[in-house]
């Protein structure tokens, strides 16, 4: 479980996040929504410990982040960044890099199985990464993260390079993968209409504050002005 208590984050004298109190449970899937600039990416980076809070505390399974070695923490709470870069020249270089981070204990077979699960041919293993489409790159980034065996996966706009149809397919793939491994998932997605019900909870953030945490149906029926404005803006 990831627990954020009274978290505040400031950057260059600007308050990005304030009064954030949030619990992310393992095995549950969360959709993180909010207007641009509301602090979604910062929240994910804080949970991944790529940046530190200005005030407040974060705990993983009851232990303060500051008591856990950063590399171990990030292995447990891995982040798929918005513009995640693939390593090396070929897809297999990404497997080899992950393997090096995991004491060479990972199985190439598992990577190939995951390729299959994300609907990519095994030949992709040797494919040049510059020849991959945006969606294919994101699928490799997802596989790469799952291979790390994290407790939690945070994904910042993992569907941004895709059309609505492919977003639904990839979202379903991602959700099925994390369900099978009992991984906690937090996804930021600009597009959410067709995929909102794949998630257990919706977190709505506005100007750095969490205004809503509840089920997808509760979110869609919420009467808060900021939520309704956001939903209307999204429907345009």
């Amino acid at each position, binding site marked *: 479980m990831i627990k954020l208590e009274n978290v505040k984050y400031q950057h260059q004298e600007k308050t990005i996040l304030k009064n954030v109190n949030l619990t992310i449970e393992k095995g549950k899937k969360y959709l993180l929504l909010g207007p641009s600039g509301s602090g979604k990416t910062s929240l994910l980076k804080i949970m991944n410990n790529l940046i530190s809070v200005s005030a407040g505390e974060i705990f993983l399974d009851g232990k303060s982040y500051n008591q856990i070695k950063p590399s171990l923490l990030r292995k447990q709470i*891995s982040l798929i*960044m918005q513009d995640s870069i693939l390593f090396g020249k070929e897809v297999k270089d990404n497997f080899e890099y992950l393997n090096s981070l995991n004491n060479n204990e990972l199985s190439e077979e598992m990577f190939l199985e995951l390729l299959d699960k994300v609907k990519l041919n095994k030949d992709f293993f040797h494919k040049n990464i510059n020849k991959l489409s945006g969606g294919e790159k994101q699928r490799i980034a997802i596989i790469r993260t799952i291979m*790390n065996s994290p407790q939690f996966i945070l994904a910042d706009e993992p569907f941004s390079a895709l059309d609505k149809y492919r977003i639904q397919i990839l979202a379903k793939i991602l959700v099925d993968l994390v369900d099978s491994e009992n991984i906690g998932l937090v996804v930021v997605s600009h597009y959410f209409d067709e995929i909102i019900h794949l998630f257990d909870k919706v977190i709505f953030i506005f100007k750095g504050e969490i205004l809503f945490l509840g089920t997808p149906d509760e979110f869609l029926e919420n009467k808060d002005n900021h939520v309704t404005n956001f939903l209307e803006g999204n429907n345009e």
Partner: protein
Amino acid sequence: MNEYFKIDNMGLMISVFAMFIVMLISSLNHLKLSKEIFIGTLRSFFQLFLMGFVLKYTFQHSHWYYTFSLLIMMILFATYEAYKRIKIKNYQLFQYILFALTIGSLIPLSVIFYLVIKIKPWYNIQFIIPISGMIVANSMTALSLGLRNFLQEIETNRLLIETKLSLGATSKNSIKPIFQKSYYNGILPSINSLMVLGIAKLPGMMTGQILAGVSPLESVKYQLMIMYMISFSTALSLLILLELSKKIVFNQREQIII
């Protein structure tokens, strides 16, 4: 055969005049370098003569504190020159450069003066200052090159580094290729110069000694000694600096802070 020919003032002025031709070429080609060439010529002229007078005085009045003071000044000046060429202005970085240059120079210099040349007394300025100058100057160039490369690569590859960190890589692992590349770029010039020694050029120290009437074979020994020690000093000081520079790039939570 071992005659030494002095340069008279007229001869020196003819050499200086050559720099005016360099300025003219720059001007005719609109390179906008004339000012730098003029300042460089003037600075080198006065700086070297000043050094010459200081050395002449200290040769005649040899004391350990003169040698020590000149060494300190040399290292401080080289540190400042290396630091000036870096975009990031950070006092900690200045300290790291100073530390790397000091340790990276003093160890090879100690080897030279105690084990190789075995000069007595240790503060014999006639040997210490010229040799130290070569060691420190070459290390300064390597540090400047290596560090600039290192920091630029970190800036350019920030997203790649963060991607690796976000998957659980340590800070050391996340910048390993950059570290290796910067180190390589920093020491390559000194390694390359070893390749062309005696073929493409007769190096400065050997040339100077031959002109002064020293036997060529004896001057070869000096030249080889200085070239190998320059490589040693470069390798050592650059390694120290790049390792320390990681503290400028990452904080204790292994987050990028530049």
